[in-house]
C-alpha cells in the first residue's frame, strides 16, 4: 500500500468483514494460505454455506459493529455448488445496493466478487484491493457518530 499524504489515513487500519461461501471462496482463501500468498491483514472471514445464505442485514450489521468495509464473495455464476444459490444472491444484492445507499453506506465500501476454489491469487487481489480502497475512503464513522448523538 502506498503511503498516504494524510498521516491520519496512513495510520488508519481498516477493518473488513468478508462473507464468503464455503465451497468456492473459502476454499480459494485456503489455497491462498497453502500457497503462502501474503496479503493485507485487515480482512476477517465469516464462513457461510453459500452466498445465497447471505442476508443484506449481515452487511449492515457488520458496519454497525465497526467494519469499515465488507467483501461478499462466492462461486462464479455458473459454478454454484448449490446450482443457483449465488444467482439468487446476485439478484438480491442488485436490489440491496440501493438500500445500502439509503442506509448511508457508500457502496464503494462493499466489494462483490467471484473467487473459485482454485483462485487463491484472485482472493489475495480482492483482499488487497478492497483494503486499499477502504483505506482511501477512511474510517466508516457514520454509525458511530449517530450512536454518539442518539
Amino acid at each position, binding site marked *: 500500500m502506498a503511503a498516504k499524504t494524510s498521516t491520519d489515513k496512513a495510520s488508519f487500519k481498516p477493518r473488513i468483514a468478508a462473507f464468503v461461501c464455503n465451497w468456492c471462496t*473459502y476454499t480459494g482463501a485456503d489455497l491462498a494460505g497453502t500457497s503462502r500468498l501474503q496479503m493485507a*491483514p485487515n480482512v476477517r472471514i465469516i464462513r457461510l454455506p453459500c452466498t*445465497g445464505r447471505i442476508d443484506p442485514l449481515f452487511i449492515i450489521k457488520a458496519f454497525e459493529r465497526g467494519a469499515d468495509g465488507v467483501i461478499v464473495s462466492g462461486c462464479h455464476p455458473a459454478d454454484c455448488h448449490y446450482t443457483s444459490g449465488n444467482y439468487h444472491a446476485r439478484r438480491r444484492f442488485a436490489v440491496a445496493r440501493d438500500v445500502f445507499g439509503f442506509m448511508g453506506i457508500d457502496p464503494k465500501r462493499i466489494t462483490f466478487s467471484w473467487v473459485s476454489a482454485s483462485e487463491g491469487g484472485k482472493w489475495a487481489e480482492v483482499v488487497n484491493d478492497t483494503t486499499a480502497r477502504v483505506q482511501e475512503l477512511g474510517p466508516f464513522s457514520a454509525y458511530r457518530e449517530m450512536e454518539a448523538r442518539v
Partner: protein
Amino acid sequence: MSRIGVFVCHCGENIGRTVDCAAVAQACGELPGVVHSIDYKYMCSDPGQALVKQAVAEHKLDGVVVAACSPHMHEKTFRKTVANAGINRFLCEMANVREHCSWIHEDREEATQKAIDLTRFIVEKIKHNVPLEPIKIPVTRRALVIGGGIAGIQAALDIADGGCEVVLVEKEPSIGGHMSQLSETFPTLDCSQCILTPRMVEVYQHPRIKLMAYAEVDKVEGYIGNFTVTVRQKARGVNASLCNGCGECQKVCPNKKIASEFDAGLGKRPAIYVPFPQAVPNIPVIDRANCALYKGRARNAKKDACKKCEEVCGRKAIDFDQQDTFLTEKVGAIVVATGYQLYNIKKEQDKEAISGYGEYGYGTIPDVIDGLQFERLASASGPTGGKILRPSDGKEPKTVVFLQCIGSRDPAKGIDYCSKICCMYIAKHTMLYHHKVHGGQAIVFFMDIRAGGKGYDEFTRRAIEENDALYVRGRVSKMYRDGDVIKVLGFDTLSGEPMHIDADMVVLATAMRPQPGIESLAQKLSVSYDRFGFINEAHPKLRPVETNTAGVYVAGACQAPRDIPDAVAMASATASKILGLFSASELEREPLVAQVDQGTCAGCFHCVRVCPYGAVEHFEVKDRKGNLIKTVAQVNKGVCQGCGTCQANCPSKSVELQGFTDQQIFAAINAF
C-alpha cells in the same frame, strides 16, 4: 451455553511463527463463557486430541473451539474427538488461524490480533450451537430407468447385475433406441444389431429387471431413496401375457402402407406391428390412428370395419378394448436415459427458437435425406436390403453430397452447439457408400472435422485417404432440384473455388436434439435442463452423471450429444453411483438443513421459489377436526442440501438453516 473450551494450535512452527499462540489462548480465556483455554504444539496429534477429551471431561465443556487449520482439513477429526468425549459433534467448531492468518501474514502483532478476532467470532457463534443428529433416510433399493436405448439398457443391466431391482420404462413398443436403427458403428464398423440384440434379450430375461415398454412416466413424488413413480402403461390393443409373437396378425392387416418409424419413413409397416423383427418385447401394438377399426369407431361407425388380426390370432391376444393403465412403483434412484431426436429441416419446428432450412427447400426436395435415413439404406435389414438406392426412383446415386453441421453450429437457426458425433458418422457413411457403390463419388461439405477419441481421427483419415471421400471445407448456400439432380451451391474455402455440384442424393448431418417431451419429464423430476432441453449434470467435470436433484442421474444423449461409447460409459457410471447409494439400507446425511417455524411462517412461499432443489413443500396446518387453518412451508430434510437461500429470502425470518442460524451468524458479527 456457557462452558466453552478453546484450543489453540501451533502447528509446529506453521502457526506459532507468526501468531503468538499463547497470547491467543490468554485472550480467549478471558471471554465470557470460556472456562478453559490452552495452546498446544500439534492439536491433531494423538496427544493433542487426548488433551481435548480430557478437558471435556474435566471442565464439563459443552462447546469446543479449535483454533488451528482450515475446517476443510480437520473439522471431521475434532468433531469425532468430541463425540468420543461424549458431547454432540456439532458443538465443536474450528477457527482458521493457519490458512487464513499465519500463512498469509508476516507481521506478528497484526496476525496475532487477527487470530484472536477469528477465534472470538467462533466462540460467540458456538454459544448458539445446538446438538444435532444426523438425518437418516431409508432407501428403497430399487431403481427406475427411463428410456430403453443403449444407455438405458446398459444402466439397467449393470444395476441388476449388481444385485438390485430395476424398472425400465420405454415409451416405444420396443427397447433398443436409435442404436437399433444403425447399420454399422464407428469407430470399429461392427454391426449395430449384432452387438445390441443380445443385450436387449438379456434385459428381457433378467430376473431383476421389470421391463415396461410402450409406457411413460406420469408422475414422480418423493426424494432420494424414496421416490414413488406412477407409470402409464399405454394400451397396445394386444394382451401381452397371451401373445406369443407369432406375427400372423401383421401379415393379414390390410393397412400395410404406413411409413415405418424404424425405417425413418423409408419403409412401410402395417397398422398392427412390431417396430422391427428383433424387437424386445416381441409383442405387436395397434397403431390406433391408422387402424381401420379404431378409425371407424372414432367416426361412430355401427359396425367394426376390420377385425382381421383378431380373427387370425390363435392366442386370442387381440384386445381392442384395452385401456391405458397406471401402475405405481417405489424406487430409490432414477436414471434419465431418454436419448435424442434429429433436428428436422422442415419449416415447422417444435420450438419457436429453432427454424428450418428454406435455402435447402425446407425438406421438400426428394432425395435429400438425413443421417438416420442413410443408416437405414445402408442397413442389411433396411428397406433396400442394404443397397444404397435413392428414395425417389430407386436409382443408385453416383454422386452423393454430405452436408455436415446442419442445424448444429448454426445459431441463426437456433442451435449453437456442435453435435459431436456427425463428423464421425458422415465419415462412416462415405466408407459404407464407397464399399457399396462402385464408381460413386462422396463429397462432404464440412467446417471442421471433429474426431477426438480413441481411433477416431484415424477413422476419418481412412475415409479420405483410402475411401476416396472428397472433403470440401465450406457451407452450402443453397440447394434446389433441377430435373433429375439436386443443384448444390457450395464453396471451397481452402482453394477459394466455388463448388457447384449436381448431386444424385444429399445426406444432411442434422443436429442431435433432446427427445420431444424432455422438458415436461425434467419438470416432473425437478432436474434442470439447458435452453435446448438437454438435462444438466450437477457438475460438468466432477459430477457428470448426477443431476442437481439427489437420487436422479443422467446417461446418454439426453444430457448432450453422445456417441455409443460415451452413452455406455455414462450408463455404467450411473449404475455404480446407484449401487453405491444402495449399498446401505439407510442414508445418513449431515443435519445442516433448513427448518421452518410454522408458527410464524406467513405462507408467502418465497422459499419455495428460490430453493434450487425444490426441497420446500406446501404443508397444510389443520385443527383437530381436520379443518384447514393455513398453508405454510415445510422443508423436506431428504431433499434439502443446506444452501440457506430460503432463509436469506424469507421475509418473516421463519426458516432457519441448522448450523448457520441467524442467531449464530449475528453472534459472530456482533463479536466484530
